[in-house]
């Protein structure tokens, strides 16, 4: 008899298609796993409303569970409470840093609508805090671009959200 813990374990193999070093568990987007008879319901919450990775993630979850023999899979999207980067695991944040992406700061610093405030973002390469915002938007909806004044590295910052 399969239990939910095993399903959670399988989902650790489903990676973020845009940042393949972290899993959807690291990201904190899986809200719940429920098993009814042999049907599995997975609730996930989107990072950003228009994130194109979400459709791919839905399919990858389905494929991964199929690999393990589960054909009846229902994936439900939960919008509220809205996903926050605080749900990202410490392990996930470390993996991001190792990959060259600065992990999100804690949400206390969450960039509200107040203007011209910048976060202190640490360079993933040399750990310096003397970094500068280059662009509020980056290669994906979830990232901004910073540059490090100490080592000159230009890097992605996973925005706190």
């Amino acid at each position: 008899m399969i239990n939910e813990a095993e399903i959670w374990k399988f989902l650790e193999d489903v990676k973020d298609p845009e940042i393949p070093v972290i899993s959807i568990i690291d990201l904190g987007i899986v809200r719940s796993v429920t098993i009814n008879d042999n049907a599995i319901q997975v609730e996930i919450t989107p990072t950003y409303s228009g994130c194109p990775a979400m459709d791919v993630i839905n399919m990858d979850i389905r494929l991964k569970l199929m690999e393990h023999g589960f054909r009846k899979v229902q994936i439900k999207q939960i919008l509220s409470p809205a996903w926050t980067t605080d749900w990202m695991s410490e392990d996930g944040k470390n993996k991001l840093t190792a990959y060259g992406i600065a992990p999100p700061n804690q949400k206390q610093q969450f960039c509200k609508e107040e203007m011209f405030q910048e976060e202190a973002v640490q360079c993933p390469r040399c750990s310096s805090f003397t970094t500068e915002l280059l662009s509020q938007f980056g290669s994906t909806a979830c990232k901004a671009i910073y540059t490090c004044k100490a080592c000159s590295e230009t890097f992605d910052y996973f925005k706190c959200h």
Partner: protein
Amino acid sequence: MFKKQKIMSDSIKVFSNLSSPLGGQGAFLYILHLADNVLILGQRNSEWTGHGPVLEQDIAITNISLDYLGQARNFYQYAAELYNGFSDDEKQSVDKWLPRLWKDYNRGLEEDDLAFLRDEHQYLNLLLVEVPKGDWAKTVFRQFLFSCFQYYLFQNLQKKSSDQQIAAIADKSLKEISYHLKWSSEWVIRLGDGTDESHRRMNDAVTDLWKYTGELFQPALYEESVFQAFGVAIQEIQESWNKKVDDVFAEALLKVPEQTGNLTGGKAGRHTEHMGYLLAEMQYLQRAYPNSKW
């Protein structure tokens, strides 16, 4: 081997068995209005893709468009889901807002039908979001006016909506909206309090767009019924909006113009001459290849 197509087609299961406490027509039209605002502004902003003044801002405005498409999808999916669960009477009451082409498809209503197959008079967006993008000053100024409005409106919907799905979409969207508001406020200030040239352009944008702001605070019938049901006071939203606009204008060295006319009608389906061109481009694929999927 898996049948990949099948997996694709049923992988996006979002809502099920939802009904709105608002009842049929009011809920349906209000949700369409919210969806149309972001779809049309998303389409307008996406015209900058590959044409932004600098690479970073090209990426920024495109990302904002992407957020809007996501918000629009959430609203259209909900509207379609509600419609498919309507009684015959409720279906009849919203019939004139449904796409003609879809009626021949003989299947349930889907998000894309609502987004891409309605005629011009069936769209319920604000005029503000459909007017041409103009120069960068006009684009960021429109962005600021709309984000500011959306920010205070969605805070109200998040807290007060008795319709759980509308509250959830507002909750999800607000984080994105906060970021848009911050970004656009900064641009209005940067250009307003910038060079003579940038100040002139920002001033022109204010003159061009101010006449569309009255419509934000003149509720259509379906909005009135929703605001009443939720206990949302549009006057409070207007006060917050005015205060924020005043604060940003003060820093940007801009003046709120003397009211120079007030153009309305978008929320009732009466649009500017620009709307038809926008739709012709946006709807091309679904019109040329009806019901096509990828």
